[in-house]
């Protein structure tokens, strides 16, 4: 069983390919800069692009694991590193 840390919002981008999951993440970050967002994605490019985007935008990738329902991966992204 995947235990996902606490989050404020879920973005289900499964079925969407790059760059859409990262654009969704960027929109969520713009709407709520301090929010903790759980991104669900099954695009293989997200494995590389989510960490790369976090580094470019100074966001924190707190956790990466399998999606709670087992479909795709989950990325927990929060505000700028302390």
């Amino acid at each position, binding site marked *: 069983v995947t235990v996902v840390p606490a989050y404020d919002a879920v973005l289900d981008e499964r079925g969407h390919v*790059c760059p859409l999951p*990262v654009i969704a993440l960027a929109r969520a970050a713009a709407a709520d800069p301090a929010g903790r967002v759980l991104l669900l994605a099954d695009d293989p490019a997200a494995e590389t692009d989510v960490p790369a985007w976090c580094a470019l935008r100074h966001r924190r990738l707190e956790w990466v694991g399998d999606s709670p329902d087992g479909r795709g991966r989950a990325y927990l992204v929060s505000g700028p590193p302390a």
Partner: protein
Amino acid sequence: VASQSSTGPDHPDVASGSRSVAPAGYFDAASTAPLHPAAREALLAALDQGWADPSRSYHQARRARLLLDSAREATAAVLGARPDEVSFTSSGTQAVGLGLAGLVRGRERVGRRVLAAAVEHSSVLHAAADAVGDDDGVRTLAVDSLGRVDTDEAVAALRGPGVALLALQSANHEVGTRQPVDEVAATAREHGIDVPLLVDAAQSVGRDPLPRGWSVLTASAHKWGGPAGVGVLAVRTGVRWRSPSPEGALEHGRVPGFVAVPAVVAAAAALVAVERDRAAESARLSALIDRLRARVPDLVPDTVVLGDPVDRLPHLVTFSFLYVDGEALLADLDREGFAVSSGSSCVADSLQPSHVLVAMGALTHGNLRVSLPIGAAEPDIDRFLDVLPGVVARVRGVLGAEGL
């Protein structure tokens, strides 16, 4: 001096002196180059004079043999090899496959572990997995964010048990970063480590100084303006290499099948011509790449410039543009007259992002590789810089990604 427009996009730019035949806006030389004029000329002559079987002894055969021998000598001189070390194959991929499998066979008593940089060309990684029978026998060496393996880490890995060989490219085909081939070879030698190095030099031959520390070197003629269907496999004298081919292989017993003498002659003619102008032309192209590396991030917001800015191939640069669909980017640039390539997953048949970009931890979407052909004209670069910002903005706009 004739301008680009007076020669037209599909005619040789004879005015530049570099005898390019690449059409204006063709920026995908790392995939393949158009036939060099010297190759065309040599090919036509050799089709008439070099068709016979060079292993026979009658006069037509001797003529073909002479052509093949002189092509071999010329090629060997450029590669820093002896003629008897050089064999011609029917492709760069075949050269890699034979080179790698032959080293594995030659090292059977030592072990079957193949080390390879994580950013090797897929032909090398596939040949490695094939030669040792399973993926477990291949260990990839990590690279830094510029795409380069660390010399000390590579040498440490060579000390491991059962290592048959290390595959280390001369320079990366996607981001241009040079690999420390000679440093790895020298450091290994200092430590008394005797593991052969397979160097895929496909992107460097005719463009960049070649490393010397190889045991096996491979290359592909269509990258330097030779015809497709000619590869080069060079095996250093004294290296334990055992042919993986059935009995009867030609080309010093290294390659199965009849040699395409006319194509080989054409490939060598192109290589000699390209090598003659290499230093000046590479310096010129490198300055154009410097300009792209400096200007594109200024003109296009949220651009990541990939690869080593200095220790790199002279003619190649790669960018990733945030929030850009790589496939749409390529299509829009094509409409503007620019042929480029991309490592983004949406462009790949496999829908997987480029393993090179993944290994570097680089942004994989919105990826764009510019690789300049020999003779690429400066006004072409100017026009590219004029067009690119609008194209990227348009592609971002379609996805509603402006201002994020």
